[in-house]
């Protein structure tokens, strides 16, 4: 293993801090969280891609319902030193619109469709992000939003099995009147 593998990426973090005014947190060994302002996130991502953090592992979203924000998290990986950057930025929950990165990473097109489907965030420039991908024929709130109630949805759309409860039979089993039926309690 070369020396560059074990050194923390101080230079690039300082340069990014200077250029893009970001907050940096160390999450774990070789993992850093870069919190960027909304309008500087795309230039920051393009800068990091140029500097070797060229692998977009995933683009995902977190719903902070109390702060009325969606957090978009871009996870970037550097293959030459094994460092992971979690670039996160916040968009307004009432009007969740952000910009696409599909021109930098073609795979992002599908991540953006995924985020659009499950959180309702729109990505300007990705005209295919409204197409359904995993949920077909969905016409409710995006299901991973915190104000969506999955149990209510399940009750409305997918009927439950109805069970008839034979209370007297169960009571007899519990009182051991029916010795033979002891194994029968669950049907």
């Amino acid at each position, binding site marked *: 293993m070369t020396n560059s593998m074990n050194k923390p990426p101080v230079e690039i973090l300082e340069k990014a801090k200077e250029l893009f005014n970001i907050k940096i947190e160390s999450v774990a060994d070789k993992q850093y969280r870069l919190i960027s302002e909304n309008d500087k996130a795309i230039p920051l991502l393009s800068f990091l891609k140029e500097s070797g953090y060229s692998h977009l592992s995933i683009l995902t979203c977190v719903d902070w319902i109390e702060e009325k924000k969606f957090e978009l998290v871009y996870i970037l990986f550097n293959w030459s030193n094994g460092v992971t950057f979690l670039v996160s930025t916040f968009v307004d929950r009432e009007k969740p619109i952000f910009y696409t990165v599909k021109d930098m990473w073609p795979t992002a097109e599908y991540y953006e469709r995924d985020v659009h489907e499950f959180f309702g965030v729109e990505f300007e420039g990705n005209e295919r992000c409204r*197409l*359904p991908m*995993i*949920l*077909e*024929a969905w*016409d409710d709130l995006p*299901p991973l939003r915190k104000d*969506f109630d*999955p*149990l209510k*949805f*399940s009750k409305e*759309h*997918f*009927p*439950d*099995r109805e069970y008839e409860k034979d209370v007297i039979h169960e009571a007899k089993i519990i009182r051991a009147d029916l010795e033979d039926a002891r194994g029968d309690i669950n049907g």
Partner: protein
Amino acid sequence: MAQIDERSVWEKIADQLRSRSMWMLHYCTGCGAVELPPSMTSRFDMERLGMGPMATPRQADIFLITGYLSAKTLRRVIYTYEKMADPKYVIGFGSCTINGGIYYDSYSTINRLDYYIPVDLYIAGCMPRPEAILNAFNTLMKMIRKGEANGWKRYKENYEWYKQNQLRSLKEVIIHDEFHE
């Protein structure tokens, strides 16, 4: 109208033969698929019951629903079930197909399989072990010989009811595939 379990002599003979050569559709959903390799291979050896895997629905006789079904998968399951030739038998594996199991409150998985396609036999458990699966295959063979496994007839008879349930939960059963359209 003829009774649903009424069979002619020839059908009784055919059922004897059918029960001993069942081909299983190689279509796995959910986590129950893990239990099939031990049931198929040398330890439990499904083939001694005359059962083998088959790749196409046109040539298969039994359809195993091995675990939870999402709405998206259910569309494919209905599509596949309708492609299978009569007679066809369905076995539901595990609690997810019976009442939703641990996914009872999920927005994307169904709670009750026999609401959408007829199920001849359920195996309880989460997941059922290969012993239970082999037991179920034996039971299904007995049911076929007695003429009790007539889910495919029920599907024809109550087609409207099944279709209505499918549409209620899925809105449309037709499959859109953006890569092949």
